[in-house]
């Protein structure tokens, strides 16, 4: 098998494969690299210098302007994003885990029916819900409040689906039975035994729900008029729409975009293995 011609051939295809993958890597990195370069430049040099080359290092001044603009509204948006996406995903993970665990481990009538309702929910696009929710929420007066975005965000049928798969795989039925024989209540068993066995799965569910909320632009846009309630995405969108009239905002949109994606990218890379378990489970069906 290892005659010279196959070695040459495999070297050739190896080089071609590496070249292709490097081209794709450049494609994925280009916008982020551009953003990093642009965020370090003074506003005046955005249009006059090469977009891919660093010039005057002005990042700290750009950050100062970003965080002091309009009485520090960007910091407020960042905090709001944490409330909606981090707190929302945490609450969502807890309720999904309880529900998915019960659907996996308890036997009761209507279990399969409830699960198929949840599965139907996975296919309901969240954008289709935003407008009717707006009407319902305006009738109850919670439109334009934190709750208007927070409450719908905690519901994740996909999280329940994952929790059920993970609970089946990670929590042995005998363990639950023996906890019952020891007289432990179901909630105690869940929080002290089962949830620990499910921890990697819970991280995965949390990550998926975080992304769903972080990505959901339509819901906050429909629900919120008050700038002080905006998540970062909606705030940057508003600023971006004003750059024609106020060109100085451009640099803040760029710096703000960089500031908001860098921590998320870092966390995602650190938690890589949880993505892969989740995506593998998602494709099992």
């Amino acid at each position, binding site marked *: 098998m290892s005659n010279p011609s196959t070695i040459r051939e*495999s070297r050739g295809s*190896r080089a071609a*494969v*590496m070249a*292709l*993958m490097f081209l*794709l*890597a450049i494609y*994925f990195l280009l*916008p982020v690299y*551009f*953003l990093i370069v*642009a965020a370090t430049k003074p506003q005046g040099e*955005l*249009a006059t210098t090469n*977009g*891919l080359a660093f010039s005057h290092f002005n990042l700290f001044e750009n950050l100062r302007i970003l965080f002091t603009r309009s009485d520090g509204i960007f910091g407020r948006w960042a905090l709001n994003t944490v409330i909606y996406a981090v707190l929302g995903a945490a609450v969502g993970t807890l*309720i999904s885990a*309880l*529900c998915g*665990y*019960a*659907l996996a481990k308890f036997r*009761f009538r209507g279990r399969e029916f*409830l699960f198929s309702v949840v599965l139907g929910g996975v296919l*309901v*696009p*969240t954008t289709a819900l935003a*407008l*009717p*929710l707006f*009407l*319902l929420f305006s009738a109850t007066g919670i439109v334009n409040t934190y709750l208007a975005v927070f*409450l*719908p965000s905690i*519901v994740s*049928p996909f999280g329940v689906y994952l929790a059920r798969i993970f609970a089946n795989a990670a929590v042995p039925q005998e363990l639950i039975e023996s906890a019952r024989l020891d007289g432990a209540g179901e*909630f105690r068993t*869940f929080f002290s035994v089962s949830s620990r066995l499910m921890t990697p799965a819970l991280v995965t569910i949390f990550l998926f729900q975080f*992304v769903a909320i*972080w990505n959901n*632009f*339509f819901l906050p846009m429909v629900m919120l008029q008050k700038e002080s309630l905006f998540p970062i*995405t*909606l705030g*940057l*969108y508003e600023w*971006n729409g004003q*750059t*024609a009239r106020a060109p100085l905002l451009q640099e803040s949109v760029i710096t703000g975009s960089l500031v*908001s994606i860098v921590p998320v*990218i870092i966390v*995602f890379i650190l938690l*890589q293995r949880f*993505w*892969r378990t989740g*995506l*593998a489970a*998602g*494709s099992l069906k």
Partner: protein
Amino acid sequence: MTDIAPRAVTSGGRRRPGGGGPRAGTVIAFLTPFFLPFVLFYLVPVGYALWQSFRVVRRTGGQYGTSYTTFGGFDQYTQVFQNSEFWNSIGRIGLFGIVQVPVMLFVALVMALLLDTPLLKLKAFFRITAFMPYAVPGVIAAIMWSYLYSPQLSPVVDLFQRIGLHPDFLGPGAVLWSAANVSTWLWTGYNMLIMYSALQSIPQELYEAAKIDGATNWTIAWRIKVPIIAPSIVLTTVFSIIGTLQLYAEPAVLRQISSNISSTFTPNMLAYAVASGNNYQQAAAISVVIAVITFVLSFGFMRLTSKKAGL
């Protein structure tokens, strides 16, 4: 064997009728924290949108009469289907989906297959760079790309101009594909990772047998690996169809810098524009139609592919 059967009977006898496990109250306590908000914020809005879509606004008397809503049958739906803007937005998104989804999934599949061969080095680097855009929300991705499309700021346009080309990424013919590029950038790595995870779970012995029979890496990839991970490819296709029909944020951002994107560019943008004009019943009907098209396409695709595979 003999002593297992009686034990099973006793434990069965100890249990309450209707099956083993916890009491009904406990089950309800586990389910309610999810199902209460699920009903309130998922099922009720779906029902409400359906109900709204069968209502119409009428006025008592002439132009100055007070308005009231009443049952209107399929009036709203007739209006949707007679609205040329609706069909234009569907046509645009259909063209977008027919081109963007296969291109994206093909690139994702090739990457996943290459990451799964011994040919490649620096695997972790390639995997992470491809997946990284998934951390970026659509709005911010579109903002980043809009700077790369803008004739004043873009280093990409600069490069093209240096070799004598003058691309207009925001022009009337190109802007749809500029939006498609943002989606491709965002989702290729995610889809690649779904396919890659499926490839990783195939036992290696399967390939060894093929290799002994003289199969090349190429044959193994397309004849063995791709058919095995077909369910993942179907799944990513369905996700992509759903995502395409929901498109909103990316074109909305590009609209801020391009006059070639109308306020009714995608079906969802149309629904929002109609709702902003206070015509909620019409907006509800549009949303219902989009949701039905989404269901039909995703289920249809799943049925089609599972029939083909003989499942």
